[in-house]
């Protein structure tokens, strides 16, 4: 491990940053930051019709945080995030038990179906579900059922990767065999020995999945629309009405996702160091 990191260090040409690199990275970094920073400044001032904005205010945020529709949409978004990611984790952990302890051949099939949503993404997924279930008159045509189903599929690739990597890292199959030799049942071994060992691996990928559901507009808008407004649909609905309020929503969304991303990066780094 240490020789590997040394090799990487040796391969990296400079300890000092060349001027050209500083300038280029500075420009790209600035370019990436400007849209958000503009929105942030915009949300904090009364008007921006000249070169510089004028009239510092927190009015937009006060208005947003006293808006009950905003809190409702935040609540819905959180429910969507937590419930659909939880469903996906349970489904995958159960299915992965079969792959690890019963029949390894299913692993191929699982990898294939779990990667399909990654290739197809939101538009195809949402309209496929709408086309299949709308107007069938069953409980499946309920918008909420469709929405949770769609999110469960959307986050599948990310959580699957996380669980699979974690299982590979601890060599789950060997652990189960060892537990079995000691007289423990396979399923019990999976639950009591394997699962506690992969929690941290699942945590990172679940957080990533949460931020994906939080940032989703396509599924929410296509399947539920105004019937079950999540935060992104709420933003879209407000964009034409009030740009001050919308800029505050954008800042809030960005800060939430940035916080989750920061936690993910931190967890990843600490697991790498270990």
């Amino acid at each position, binding site marked *: 491990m240490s020789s590997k990191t040394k090799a990487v260090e040796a391969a990296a040409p400079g300890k000092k940053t060349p001027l050209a690199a500083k300038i280029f990275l500075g420009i790209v970094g600035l370019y990436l930051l400007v849209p958000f920073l503009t929105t942030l400044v915009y949300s904090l001032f009364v008007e921006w019709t000249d070169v510089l904005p004028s009239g510092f205010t927190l009015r937009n945020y006060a208005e947003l945080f006293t808006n009950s529709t905003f809190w409702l949409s935040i609540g819905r978004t959180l429910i969507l995030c937590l419930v659909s990611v939880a469903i996906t984790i349970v489904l995958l952990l159960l299915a992965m038990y079969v792959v690890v302890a019963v029949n390894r051949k299913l692993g191929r099939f699982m990898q294939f179906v779990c990667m399909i949503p990654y290739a197809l993404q939101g538009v195809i997924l949402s309209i496929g579900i709408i*086309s299949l279930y709308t107007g069938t008159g069953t409980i499946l045509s309920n918008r909420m059922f469709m929405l949770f189903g769609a999110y469960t599929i959307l986050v599948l690739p990310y959580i699957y990767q996380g669980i699979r990597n974690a299982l590979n890292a601890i060599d789950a199959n060997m652990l189960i065999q060892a537990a079995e030799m000691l007289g423990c049942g396979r399923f019990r071994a999976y639950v009591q020995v394997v699962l506690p060992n992969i929690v941290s691996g699942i945590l990172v990928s679940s957080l990533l999945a949460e931020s994906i559901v939080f940032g989703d507009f396509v599924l929410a808008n296509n399947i539920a629309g105004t019937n079950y407004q999540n935060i992104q649909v709420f933003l879209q609905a407000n964009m034409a009405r009030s740009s001050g309020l919308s800029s505050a929503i954008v800042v809030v969304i960005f800060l939430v*996702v940035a916080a989750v991303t920061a936690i993910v990066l931190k967890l990843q780094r600490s697991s790498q160091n270990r």
Partner: protein
Amino acid sequence: MAEISQTAAAPAAGEPATAQARSAKSRRWVGYVAFLPFLLVIVGYELLPLAQLVLDSLIGKESGTLGIENFVKVFTTPLYQQSIINSVWISLVSAVVGIVVSFLAARFAYESSERVRSAFTMVLNMMSNFSGVPLAFAFMILMGNSGVLTILGQQWNIPFLADFDLYTGEGLLVLYIYFQIPLATLLLLPAFSGIKKSWREAAIILRATPLDYWFKIVIPNLMPSILGTLSVLFSNALAAYATAFAVVMNNYALLPLQITSKFKGDVQIDAATGGALAVVLIILMVVCTLINNYFTKRASKGREII
């Protein structure tokens, strides 16, 4: 293990052996039960919806019979032709511009000190989340009809900024390029760690110019990663919906917008045409994924020396 004991026990007619075999068999059967919930959801919300779209596309809108009528219509109607062309065009241009910028960015980040590199990577990670509706809104504030840069352009007489129209294909292109850059750089950065310092020294000793070094050594070596990333960017732009919808609503000929409007139409649902358009998009995406898989395999093969 269980398989062997089971087959070995089966021929022996002894009572305890059969009982054991039966319990092993039932345990195996019970084991598969855990797979059922996953299978049910996959079939219900992934495979059947896809099959439904294919079915929609194959049942003719007018004739109601199985056939390629809808595809003929899609490829002969100007609006849909234009949607396909626009989608492929925007995706291709944004992917190519994105890859050029991010190649340089990754190269410079790689040559930088640890501190600069990690700060830059942090910005990339944070801003790669800035997409969809929030991104569209930010660009409206920046470059919309009364955007900050538009006003600056008018006051300082910069026609490019003053006359820039965000609500067109070019406007969308600027947005798409924006969200391609962080993603592309994050994907390309790891590839640079495969470039050894000794190669540069060897090249200099052999009297290669810096241009030779870059175009004959580094870029060919990184080609699998570059092409793989390019296909990811292409499909990323192809499927992007939120950004475009937030800017132009349904008033632009773009595949994802046209597909969605057929199923969520304010007028009438047209699953036949929508299905055919969706299948066109699916085929484009699948081709991208296959290309990416091919290059990812090649890229990892090349690096297995270590």
